[in-house]
């Protein structure tokens, strides 16, 4: 009985949060003289309205799934990885490098490029992990620093060694590309690519590692209680480093979505992509679970793509969607409020 109630509640919170977020977003639109009905109609149209939009929604969701997984994996192991953004950038660069500089059959080249991205992200995650394990340096601060280092370093490397006209690298070889003319055709030339398959696979992998393997057992134990883990003979330092490596690998894989999928090259980035930070929101809304993250990423991807249509068709600034996302996060985080609300409705006198 309680279990069912618990399950239901876990689903209820995000749903109610999304609805509340949209509701308040609507009120904000009303107050500022936009028509919320036509705005939301345009938003929905912008997400599902045609093949193109649907394709773009899924495309936008692919890296979000992975960055969400990266954040969630770290969360599950007691770490807060704000460095997804930087890990994503190095992953992007590594995958593009492999995509450009190797000549291999697709069955080898593409996985190789993806793994290179994941490995680079892992490496970038290992540094804060190592510093935490060895010197007890707060991972929040090091991951923030590593973001900036990644941003400037990747730019520097592109500029020094990989520059092509247009402030970017050359295009990757077709054999390393996730792009699919078939998927593009299907979705009226959206940039939909096979990255979504990679992302979903990664979600399965995360679930499997965390919950089905001894490694996951160790990682979670260390995340909850380092003393008890040590007592139980688990190598705490190794697991902190490993947790950051795996988290970073997911983030790096998110970078390959951009490098091998959406863009097929890497640009010199003037600022962060934001995908890494969005991952925090995605992982939260998805309750740090694989399925939840996929759904949350699709939602956020959809909101972002749909907001473009909302802008063009209803004239509402795209920032409104940012506000709605912020509200949703607030509500999910404050699930206490929703718990309280539902209790008021369901409580029949006694407990």
């Amino acid at each position, binding site marked *: 009985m309680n279990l069912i109630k618990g399950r239901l509640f876990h689903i209820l919170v995000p749903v109610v949060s999304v609805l509340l977020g949209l509701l308040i977003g609507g009120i904000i639109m009303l107050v500022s003289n936009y028509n919320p009905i036509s705005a939301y109609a345009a938003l929905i149209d912008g997400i599902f309205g045609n093949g193109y939009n649907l394709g773009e929604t899924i495309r936008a969701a692919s890296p979000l799934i992975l960055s969400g997984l990266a954040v969630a994996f770290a969360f599950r192991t007691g770490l807060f990885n704000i460095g997804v953004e930087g890990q994503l950038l190095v992953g992007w660069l590594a995958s593009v490098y492999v995509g450009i500089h190797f000549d291999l059959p697709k069955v080898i080249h593409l996985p190789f490029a993806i793994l290179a991205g994941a490995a680079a992200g892992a490496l970038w995650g290992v540094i804060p992990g190592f510093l935490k394990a060895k010197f007890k340096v707060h991972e929040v*601060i090091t991951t*923030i620093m590593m973001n900036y280092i990644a941003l400037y370093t990747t730019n520097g*490397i592109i500029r020094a060694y990989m520059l092509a006209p247009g402030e970017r690298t050359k295009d990757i070889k077709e054999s390393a590309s996730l792009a699919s003319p078939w998927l593009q055709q299907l979705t009226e030339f959206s940039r939909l690519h096979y990255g979504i398959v990679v992302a979903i696979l990664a979600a399965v992998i995360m679930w499997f590692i965390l919950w089905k393997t001894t490694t996951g057992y160790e990682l979670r134990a260390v995340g909850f209680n380092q003393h008890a883990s040590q007592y139980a003979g688990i190598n705490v330092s190794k697991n902190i480093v490993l947790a950051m490596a795996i988290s970073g690998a997911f983030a790096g894989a998110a970078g390959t979505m951009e490098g091998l999928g959406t863009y097929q090259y890497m640009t010199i980035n003037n600022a962060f992509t934001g995908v890494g930070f969005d991952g*925090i929101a995605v992982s939260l809304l998805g309750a740090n679970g694989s399925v939840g993250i996929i759904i949350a990423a699709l939602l956020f991807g959809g909101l972002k793509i749909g907001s473009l249509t909302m802008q063009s068709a209803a004239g509402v600034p795209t920032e409104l969607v*940012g506000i709605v*996302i912020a509200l949703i996060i607030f509500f999910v985080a404050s699930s206490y409020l929703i718990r309280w609300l539902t209790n008021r409705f369901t409580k029949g006198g006694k407990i």
Partner: protein
Amino acid sequence: MDFFQILALIVPAAIVSAAPLILTALGGVLSERSGVVNIGLEGLMMFGAFIGAVFTHYGEQWGLGGGSPWMSFVVAIVAGALFAVPHAVASISLKADQVVSGVALNFLAAGLSIFLTKKLFGAGQTPDIQERIGKGDVPVLSKIPVIGDLFFSNAYSTSFVAVFLAFVVWYIIYKTPFGLRLRSVGEHPMAADTMGINVIKTRYISVIMGGAFAGLGGAIYVASIAGNFTGSTISGQGFMALAAMIFGKWHPLGAMGAALFFGLAQSLSITGEQIPLLKDIPDVYLLILPYVLTILALAGFVGRADAPKASGQPYEKGKR
């Protein structure tokens, strides 16, 4: 350039870019010392920057002249305080995950400030402000040899405000009854509760004060450096302030020192290109210098920093 010339270039620039960081980091110290983690500093700073730009502009329109930025600081303090309220409500009363609530605040600030800018000005950025905080020589002090040139010449009044406020916060936290309570609430809220201290209220006050400081930090950034507000005016400074707070071990003066260190590292990285010896080093090394130095400092001599014990945990009466 001789060594002193280089110093004379680097030090004032460091102090200039440090002021907004100092203030925002102080905001973080206040909030986190009371046990509420504040990843939302970036958002608070952004909102403060937005308010600063808008009200300096309005101040100019209302004929306040040179007083405009100062008026905007007052508004930004209030606005920052108000903007911290959602974070306070979520993380204190609604027992939300504080990190997440802070992240939400960042998203909210980014969305809301640009949304409002578009609403107010029909443009994605505010008009340029004309009345900026000026630089000047501090009378008397600037005449002191060496030190005068480094610290008191060509300096912003806001930098002194920031340094002064760091000492004020230090005094509040370490010398007043309120500070004692604030710290106790961040270390062991239940102990504080049994001593008759209102944990919830103390945390609210601290988080809201923290918001005020971060808001001021943002406004000062606009009035002394940026000159207007756009979506990218505050891009990462709040996170740097957070880093400064941790680097400074949650101590007001430590945070100030860390912010100055960041400023120094950054201005060294900029001025470095003009120093003959460093000139030939590729850009990128100088660009990442501040961040690498910070990491090295943390791993090396600063060592582990312990957060206030109860930070991150919502307080529930009677929970063990």
